[in-house]
């Protein structure tokens, strides 16, 4: 490998880690199935069948949501901030967006824009509390965001009951439905599919691009990453770490604000008591899986969505509890970091060897010149 260019080496190393992890997760899950006496072949056969068009749409939709959640978590990670609170943030934000969009103060698309803005603001504000507490009072953002998740649940429940409307015959409550003109239309993939792909997928892709551009190309992104890499070096180079902490939490929360919106604008059209929860925690795993890289996060989100979708039928068709894929998912997260670590150590060794080799050669040629002179 030492003969390859450093960038290619790094790319190959980067790819080998997830592959290693997938293999390990596959093996461990199979082992669990064998020990439990469940049909290994049947389970993998079902999970690895080619998804039908509508399943594909579901996978894309679910992945869109998970992707946004992963991005939100990843922004924090890039700065060594651990935002466990995406879960609370997106629920607060989806609720606010549903209320705003449901009221329909503005017509059509303007209403969508207003609601999205409101959601991002709400998510940012909720995350900002943890940011301010961390920056000004030194409260660990891990603890603060955990607490804020619980608090979000209570507050949203309270306000939901204040504004709720209840459809006749239904036992759920929800916000007012978003008017027809302010929904984001989906599109079909293939024909005959009854399930459409969320139109929001484009906004998610845009968010991914913005994430990449801001973090990797702008001065702001550089400062954010530098703070994450070394707070002390950041301070010495003129970065205001407290402000970066708050800003990063605000951005993370703003992105978290988008998490519930594909569902809201593409499917549910209201925020109710059965609105999907727990997406923030999935986002942590996905950000870790994707190594905070926008493409990697997309792959991770697709993988998780794929496993979720394909395991759904396990109980009906194979008679195995779909919880088995949670084991697979968790093991993937763990094995991914372990294999990244193993590969990283290997990479560092390669790098050192390369540097030392180059220096030695330089040294030798210098010595030769000396002797020939």
């Amino acid at each position, binding site marked *: 490998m030492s003969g390859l260019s450093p960038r290619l080496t790094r790319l190959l190393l980067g790819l080998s880690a997830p592959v290693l992890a997938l293999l390990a997760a596959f093996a461990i899950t199979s082992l669990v199935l064998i020990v439990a006496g469940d049909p290994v072949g049947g389970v993998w056969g079902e999970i690895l069948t080619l998804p039908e068009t509508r399943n594909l749409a579901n996978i894309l939709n679910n992945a869109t949501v998970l992707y946004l959640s992963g991005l939100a978590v990843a922004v924090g990670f890039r700065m060594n901030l651990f935002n466990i609170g995406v879960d609370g943030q997106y629920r607060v934000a989806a609720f606010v967006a549903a209320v705003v969009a449901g009221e329909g103060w503005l017509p059509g698309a303007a209403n969508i824009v207003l609601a999205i803005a409101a959601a991002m603001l709400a998510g940012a504000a909720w995350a900002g509390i943890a940011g301010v507490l961390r920056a000004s009072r030194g409260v660990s953002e891990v603890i603060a965001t955990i607490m804020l998740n619980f608090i979000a649940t209570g507050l949203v429940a309270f306000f939901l009951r204040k504004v709720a409307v209840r459809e006749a015959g239904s036992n759920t409550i929800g916000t007012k439905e978003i008017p027809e003109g302010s929904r984001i239309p989906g599109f079909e993939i293939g024909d005959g599919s009854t399930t459409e792909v969320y139109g929001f997928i484009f906004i998610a892709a845009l968010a991914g691009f913005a994430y990449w551009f801001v973090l990797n190309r702008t001065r702001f992104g550089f400062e954010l990453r530098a703070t994450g890499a070394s707070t002390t070096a950041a301070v010495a180079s003129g970065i205001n770490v407290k402000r970066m902490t708050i800003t990063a939490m605000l951005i993370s929360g703003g992105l978290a604000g988008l998490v519930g919106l594909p569902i809201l604008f593409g499917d549910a059209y209201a925020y109710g008591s059965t609105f999907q929860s727990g997406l923030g925690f999935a986002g942590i795993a996905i950000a870790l899986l994707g190594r905070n890289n926008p493409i990697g996060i997309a792959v991770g989100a697709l993988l998780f969505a794929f496993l979720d979708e394909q395991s759904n039928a396990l109980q009906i068709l194979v008679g195995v509890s779909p919880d088995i894929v949670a084991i697979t998912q968790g093991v993937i997260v763990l094995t991914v970091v372990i294999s990244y670590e193993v590969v990283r150590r290997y990479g560092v060794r390669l790098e*050192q060897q390369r540097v030392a080799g180059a220096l030695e050669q330089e040294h030798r040629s210098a010595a030769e010149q000396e002797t020939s002179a």
Partner: protein
Amino acid sequence: MSETAPAPASSAPAVRLRGIGKRFPGVIANDDINIDVEPGTIHAVVGENGAGKSTLMKILYGVQAPDSGTIEINGRPVSLGSPADAIGHGVGMVFQHFMLADNFTVLENVVLGAEKLHGIGAAARAEIMRISDAYGLDIEPDRLVEDLGVGARQRVEILKVLYRGARIIILDEPTAVLVPQEVDELFDNLRELKAEGLAVIFISHKLDEVLAVADTITVVRRGTTVATVSPDEVDSRQLAELMVGSELPSPSTESSTVTDTVTLSVRGLRLRGEGRPLLDDVGFEIHAGEVLGIAGVEGNGQAELVEAIMGMRPAATGAVELAGRDLTKTSTRQRREAGIGYVPEDRHRHGLLLDSPLWENRVLGHQSREPVVRRGLIDRRAARADTQRIIEQYDVRTPGTDVLAGALSGGNQQKLIVGREMSGDPILLIAAHPTRGVDVGAQAGIWDHIRDARRAGLAVLLISADLDELIGLSDRIEVILRGRLVGSFDPSQVTPEQLGSAMTGAGGAA
């Protein structure tokens, strides 16, 4: 005293190393090392930066395993798999950096790992007091280590070794952070140990010290022992030539380049601490073309002074003016933009992103300025190009700009930092210990760059624990003690001993 360390047979050396070899990925740290250390002597090991001294000592102390070679202690071959083994054979080591848990008491730090000897309670305390009195170490067992000064910490380290009954004591650069008086005290301690028949292995870059205290000197070059000499046979210049194989550069200032223009003016700088103030009414001026050296025992406010001038200490009060512009209320970035370059004391903590490539490290601290950043966007190509320029101008030994900073050796990292800080065309350079632990060649390079810039009108604030460097480079030296400037010296008149007295508060201003 360890039972596995019998009374030395008259012929066998305390330590005999034969053919020791140790390779790291891509580096040969030790190669065919042969050393004999006699009991009742102080044996110095000297060598260039990265020559492999610390590695060798870690092998002798069981921290790292050698790839080849044999170790004999008191005439018996031993295999040292861990520090515990080494301790069992009567070896003790004081590391280059303090190995103390700050939040533990002295007692806890001392008994850790040796609880079997006297427990962790009253008996242990009594034993510590006994050793402390016997060697005049003056140690209070129940104080938290974080409240101790460097000298006291050094003595705790030695006590740790004695407590374990070590007969062979390794000291890796113990004097780097001590002032001359403290060094003398340390040497008195060492001589006492020697008198008791202990073997002391002593590593230092300061050749005068080595010549003053050692009975035997072994020189290590590129991982190999090249000579073992007696201090009577050599002087420091010869020793240096043995080490590097070439002449030793020295920090000497040529004719003064000081101008009348005041570049930096600091007035009434104060910073509150928990007890006494960290900085107390500090004020001085530096002119264009002038190097102002700050001398002081570590921890007397140098770090705080630098950070206050850099705007990294928001609580500091007082006025900072750069070329007539008031910077008192500005942020660190604004100060950097105004023309301050900053070579931090701790390059790993403050100077570099170790896990980022060199070109990103070039951007660090200059992320608001061209050429590496344009209109808020990082210009990768320009950043790489400018990094390449630094690599060439400052002789940074690296295969390219995409190498991670952590893969460079300390000296090369330092050269990169100096090159980067000079690239913003600063009018003031704050250089804190710019050559600490840096090898002789790199040291000379860095001194040259500072001199060149000074000639071109740069003002330099130089903080260093190396008094020779301070005297050699500075146009003026201020001594800092307990957060106050206590004396001003002319480097052409002052001796290191005088400076040392002023630094500890024993002497007055010149």
